[in-house]
């Protein structure tokens, strides 16, 4: 048995989380509230020490980038969300800036990686596997036609086949994930058996 308090806390926490599988209970609840609180504080501390202070010092002060003061001030408007109702709307300013910033990114950047996929879908139809790939691919494309070919028996029929092929893909991903998920548990199990109980297994 380990004598390290850190390992004991970790082990009891591990067991508390697993107790959820039997029933939601006080032990799980304590673990849950603890983790939520810790993570919130953790990211606050990280944001503070890794972004706010270094960014402010390096860019706003040393490099003298004036607009850091403006964006910083706009950032503070977020807190108007807690102000009385007539001032709430000020919190929308930083949000819409971030929406716009993400929008520009999506509009320009998102087509590029997809084109790589499109390119790879144009495989030469010279092997059985490539032809099958191509047929499967088209069937799934037909499934997602929302407006075109609603009356066409061909598109509807191939669309249904497309859905079946998607199920093949999903079943495949599901089956293949099982071993990864089991490994996660085995990792915790080795922690409990080896680090905590102190068994010599390997």
């Amino acid at each position, binding site marked *: 048995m380990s004598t390290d308090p850190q390992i004991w806390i970790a082990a009891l926490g591990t067991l508390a989380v697993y107790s*959820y599988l039997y029933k*939601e209970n006080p032990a*799980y*609840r304590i*673990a*849950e509230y603890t*983790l*939520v*609180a*810790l*993570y*919130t504080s*953790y*990211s606050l501390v990280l944001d503070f020490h890794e972004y706010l202070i270094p960014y402010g010092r390096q860019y706003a002060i040393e490099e003298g980038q004036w607009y850091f003061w403006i964006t910083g001030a706009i950032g503070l408007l*977020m807190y108007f*969300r807690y102000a009385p109702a007539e001032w709430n709307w000020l*919190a929308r300013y*930083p*949000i819409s800036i*971030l*929406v716009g*910033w*993400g*929008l520009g*990114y*999506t509009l*320009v*950047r998102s*087509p*590029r*990686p997809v*084109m*790589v996929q*499109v*390119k790879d*879908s*144009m*495989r*030469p*139809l*010279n092997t059985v596997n490539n032809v099958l790939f*191509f047929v499967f*691919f*088209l069937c799934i*494309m*037909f499934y*997602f*036609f*929302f*407006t*075109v070919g*609603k009356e066409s028996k061909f598109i509807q029929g191939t669309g249904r086949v497309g859905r079946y092929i*998607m*199920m093949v*893909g*999903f*079943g495949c*991903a*599901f089956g293949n*994930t099982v071993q990864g998920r089991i490994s996660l548990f085995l990792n915790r199990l080795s922690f409990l058996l080896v680090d905590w109980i102190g068994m010599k297994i390997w």
Partner: protein
Amino acid sequence: MAMKTLMLLAAEAEAPLTKWGIFPNVDSAVFGMFFGIAMIILVYVMIQRARAGLPIPEIRRIPGMEAFEEAVGRATEMGRPVHITNYAEDVGDYDTWAFWSYLAHVAKLCATYDTRVINTNTDYLTQAVNEEIIKQAYLEAGRPDAFNPDDVRYCSPWQFGYTMAVAGIIAREKPAANFLIGYFYAESLILAEAGALVGAIQIAASSATSQLPFFIAACDYTMIGEEFYAGAATLSKEPVIYGSVVAQDIGRVAFTIIIIIGAIMNTFGNDAMIRLIMF
């Protein structure tokens, strides 16, 4: 988001040269731009046509869309709340924009039926918008007092802190309907199984291809990939937004044709189409 960003890395290799003088020399820089412009024009034209009352094609039924009302109705009958969440996306992400359509829809249904709606979050800005949307829905339903801001919950900004909290909330509050909408990572199955353990009707809509298998297995209805966005458009108050789904479909037909032609050309050793789309 990180994973999506990384898909783009391939386009970020060193590029000293430019295309056409002003465009960066990365794959698909120019083609992607023309594609974007074409899509914007198409969406605009289709929506204008719809507004002007000109005929535009109708959308086929999207499986799962009608289940929202059924699920909220069931929660009302049972006197149990409804839970809705998207995972990690911040306000600058398209999955969040689509999620908000569903949130508004669910919040309106809940406000009309007088059912409690619980929303869980990881991002404080997304939470701020979510709260506004739900509040507004209650206001429009004429019962602003029924809105409880404490039901829009913040569950820490990290994946498994959030997952743990949501699993706990689902087990304690026993929602009769569980909506998992947006982009998810590994937590998808935990959330869906937590819902299944309390017997909730579960509807998932996601663009996370790696998590869709689990939603399909664990949820009653799953909207797959693009259905998630198309569904968001059909939920709009203004039905002309349908126009954007039509535009999206035209884009798909175009891609299908490009790929068919490209594959045939490629079979005969001609890679012109590939060079075009990668330009």
